[in-house]
């Protein structure tokens, strides 16, 4: 069974540019989560989809971040315009409905210069 995949693995962009990160959850997992780890800090929750609906987006830092999950399959996280403080590793995770365990992808390392 394929795990959670994320693309790209690394992205280097300039301040003010736009970047879109993609996450493909494990097939059949209705829950999809985005997390972020800024250097030296904890992994922080960003938002949670149940199928295509946003269940909780309380962790989204500001309106420069837009997450979508059209059709309830893969998800994208767009940062527009990117700022220096957006640099970090963005993790995606998925889980089955009413199951406790979240499965994480390898992350996308975003560097904003």
């Amino acid at each position, binding site marked *: 069974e394929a795990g959670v995949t994320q693309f790209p693995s690394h992205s280097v962009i300039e301040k003010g540019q736009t970047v879109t990160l993609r996450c493909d959850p494990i097939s059949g997992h209705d*829950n999809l989560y985005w997390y972020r780890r800024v250097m030296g800090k*904890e992994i922080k*929750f960003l938002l*949670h989809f149940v199928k295509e609906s946003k269940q909780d987006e309380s*962790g989204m830092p500001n309106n420069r971040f837009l997450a979508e999950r059209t059709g309830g399959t893969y998800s994208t996280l767009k940062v527009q315009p990117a700022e220096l403080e957006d640099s970090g590793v963005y993790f995606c995770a998925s889980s089955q*409905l*009413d199951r406790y*365990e979240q499965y994480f*992808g390898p992350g996308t390392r975003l560097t904003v210069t």
Partner: protein
Amino acid sequence: ELKVEQNPLFLSMQEGKNYTIYCNYSTTSDRLYWYRQDPGKSLESLFVLLSNGAVKQEGRLMASLDTKARLSTLHITAAVHDLSATYFCAVDPLTQGGSEKLVFGKGTKLTVNP
């Protein structure tokens, strides 16, 4: 707001030795997770602890949960080099139903020296 504190943040130990990583959290929860991360890789689920007094063991690692003390421990027995990685604990503040957001500790970077 739920806070999760791990200690130590860095741990260097010799092969064959024992050690414990501690995870304290600030509000009531009975669901705690331990993850392992190798550099550049996914977070790999090690243990899911779902009730007070839960103890789980896998190889040289043993995790326990004391919900009254709001404390989980990850005990390493007779460490080997392959255990070198970063270990995270995470707490799910939700008490019913499926998983929602996890609140993570900062992670413990473990280095096992030959």
